[in-house]
């Protein structure tokens, strides 16, 4: 557990020293979101319809962009060996890296999304729902993205294939996340959707660390 906290706090402190790094991810999130009206056109009714999809899509993208190098940097400079040789479970190390990633991207993304929702003309209750679903859904993205990152590390074709399989695992989260906002218009139960998102996050939490650890051990060979 000390190791887990050490790794987590190392990654976080690195970010804390350079708050600009988080700001860049957020700025990117805003820019990417703004592109959709430019592609689709400014009609307010259509924009409000697709807002949830757009914001979830760009959130996924922001996660992917920053996850890409989650383990690759450690692999290339030799620090991965040190992680593999640390006298505590590698699963925890993988988890710590994903957790740090979520804290510096998922969390601020969820906080920022409602602001962008305003520009898409979403009503206040939809803004709340958006923030809530992102808060619960982004950990899953960090975990699955982390898995894809570890699989493509040193990988031959097999790893690539697995990563290709890992990505569609994000689909349920995206669908339920984006659909949750619609429930407000159709009068369905928002809480049910949130419960499903939470369940997906728990499944990811229970399975991905083992898979990540196995993939990292492979990469160390």
């Amino acid at each position, binding site marked *: 557990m000390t190791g887990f906290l050490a790794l987590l706090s190392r990654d976080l402190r690195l970010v804390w020293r350079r708050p*600009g790094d988080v*700001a*860049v991810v957020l*700025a990117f999130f*805003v*820019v990417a979101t*703004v592109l959709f*009206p*430019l592609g689709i*056109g*400014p*009609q*307010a009714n259509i*924009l409000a319809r697709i807002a949830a999809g757009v914001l979830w899509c760009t959130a996924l993208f922001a996660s992917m962009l920053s996850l890409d190098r989650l383990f690759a940097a450690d692999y290339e400079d030799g620090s991965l060996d040190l992680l593999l040789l640390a006298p505590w479970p590698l699963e925890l190390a993988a988890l710590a890296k994903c957790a740090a990633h979520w804290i510096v991207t998922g969390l601020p993304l969820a906080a920022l999304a409602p602001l962008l929702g*305003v*520009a898409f*003309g979403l009503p206040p209750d939809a803004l709340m729902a958006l923030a809530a679903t992102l808060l619960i859904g982004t950990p899953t993205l960090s975990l699955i993205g982390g898995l894809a990152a570890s699989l493509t590390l040193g990988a031959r074709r097999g790893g690539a294939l697995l990563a290709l399989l890992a990505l569609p695992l994000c689909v349920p989260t995206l669908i339920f996340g984006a659909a949750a906002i619609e429930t407000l218009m159709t009068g369905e139960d928002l809480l049910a959707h949130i419960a499903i998102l939470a369940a997906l996050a728990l499944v990811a939490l229970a399975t991905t660390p083992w898979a990540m650890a196995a993939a990292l051990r492979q990469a160390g060979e």
Partner: protein
Amino acid sequence: MADLHFLANPARFRRFSQRVLPGLTFATVLGFAVGLYLALLQSPPDYQQGETVRIMFVHVPSAWLSMAGYALLAALGASLLVWRHPLAALMARAAAPVGACFALVCLATGSLWGRPMWGAYWVWDARLTSMLLLFFLYLGHIALSRAYDDPDRGDRAAAILALVGVINLPIIKFSVDWWNTLHQPASLMRLDAPAIHPAILMPLLWMAGSFLLLFILLVLVRTETEIDRRRLEIADQNA
């Protein structure tokens, strides 16, 4: 040992700015005093927009200056890359956040104005959208110049970006205008330039002049800060 070659140029700049700063400050304060008097008390409320029209006296000058600011960044970038002018890097570092702030003020006053005028804080109007993109260009410049451990590299990378960006600005503006006419949002009031009444033009020009002075003032002061900071860093490294 402090790097004398490096500081020779900025030292001259500092002597110059020390001389002009008091007068510039005075002129800025005076400009705003007169401008605000004209804008807030002298000029009549708009027959259509009422008192909210007064937002314009802040909104329009900041729009102009944020656009001019990016041109300045490009000019500074060119003088850094072509003539290796060390002061240009420091001044670009100082000017970028100021320009970004003016863009932000334009966006903020615009959306505050939009609330009574259009009933929404934001609409995807062409002018609004291209101002937003200009703001993003500023953000990229600021982020890039600070993304390196070695500040010189950040300065030069940002200079290249500013040059490419300034070539792109007209293209972006043109395409956003065209995009907007393609999708005429019929229900919304268009942001066409109203035939500006002289009673409004006068205070507007005063305010624009004062904003320009403020812009120059802020850039000069911030450049001095940058010089100090760089000098401290060098002293730190040589310690």
